[in-house]
């Protein structure tokens, strides 16, 4: 009954690179921790910082956002725009003392092994932080 706590990590993966990278990790039977819950998005540039905040609000212990390497965006520049937003969010969460709850990575469609390594590393960091501190005094109200 009392299974040890396991972090839940929401991963926003871009359709063209990181999601395909995750797929490759799967078909290549590379092992990685089962802690991530994948949400496929068209582009890292489509990840509104509010998605990340909402994931934390709903109780995710960590968030990973992954897109194509700079220069490889399917839409040419979506990840460059994303990078600016993510930098601001990263710095702000750093000030709040929550920096290591939210991670960003570039993983291409051919990097199955790299995808597994990123997930491993992120899971370890989030595990070491413990459960999401926003959950204290949690209300029962959920957003629709």
């Amino acid at each position, binding site marked *: 009954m009392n299974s040890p706590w396991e972090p839940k990590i929401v991963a926003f993966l871009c359709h063209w690179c990181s999601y395909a990278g995750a797929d490759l990790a799967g078909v290549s039977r590379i092992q990685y921790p089962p802690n991530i819950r994948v949400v496929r998005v068209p582009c890292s540039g489509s990840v509104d910082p*509010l998605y990340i905040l909402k994931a934390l609000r709903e109780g995710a212990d960590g968030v990973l956002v992954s897109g194509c390497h700079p220069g490889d965006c399917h839409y040419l520049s979506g990840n460059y725009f994303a990078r600016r937003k993510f930098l601001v969010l990263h*710095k702000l969460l750093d000030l709040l003392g929550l920096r290591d709850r939210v991670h960003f990575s570039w993983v291409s469609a051919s990097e199955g092994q790299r995808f597994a390594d990123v997930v491993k590393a992120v899971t370890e960091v989030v595990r070491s932080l413990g459960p999401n501190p926003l959950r204290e005094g949690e209300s029962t109200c959920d957003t629709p």
Partner: protein
Amino acid sequence: MTLHDAARKLLEEHKVQGVLGYRKGSLPFRTRPYLFRDPCEIEELVFNPFCGLNLARYLLFLPQGIERVAIVAKGCDGRACVALVRENRLRRENLLILGVPCPGMVDTRKLAEWEGLKEHEVTLRGGEIVIRGVAYPLASFLDASCRRCRYRSPLVYDILVEGGEVPSLPQEDTLRELRSLPEEKRWEFFRKELSRCIRCYACRNACPMCYCKECFAESHKPSFLHPSPTLRDNFVFHIGRAMHLAGRCVECGACERACPLGIPIATLFLAVSDTVREHFAFEAGVDVAAPAPFVTYREDDPNAFIR
């Protein structure tokens, strides 16, 4: 020309249909925004270190029939005007910026120690504030946003009024202390402050740049947070708002002054402004023509934080 003469003249000569300025509030150390439409009312116009509201906010809600309006603008109101013109919320030609050099705004929370303090017992003298006959350095009484202010007089104006002593205050890095704390202490600070918020939205409603008809905080489809003021919902509201203010916040501190609980909420927006300044070389409300930082990018933008 003094502020009063300039304002009266503008109304008398029908250069504008109204002058947006401050008037004495009903509580001590408070002022309220007021649209002066009649030159005889101008004697009630005030400008002192308790004019912390950002008047540019009210430019977006003018009554009908006001085509051209003058605004009493300290440095940050002026920046908000520029930022709003940039975002096509206002037309520059309908706006007359009546610039006033700003001495900085006093954080009224700091006057709480003096019981029953009356307004006339507080005066300014150069870089000092005199309270019941005792002089203290003004800098330590100012709001965090004013202690770090870079533009005390508006950068863009039509008339700059004389007078109003502007003490040359050192520009202080008000976030340094917080940044130097270890991570757990920073979270402890924000957890405590964010938990206190009752989500009255006064901070957002005081902000000149928060003019959305439908704010994400009250949106139901999609819904990002619940109306209950729990830590996690407050977190989404404030961090989400800070992201919306990135590259748009004019660092006026009006949000913080509006907060009934005295939560140092501007800290978040000032921090975001610092990031945008440091990494994207952009300051809101400074240049009408500069491209917004999030509609452009550089290939060599910081990348080390990404795995």
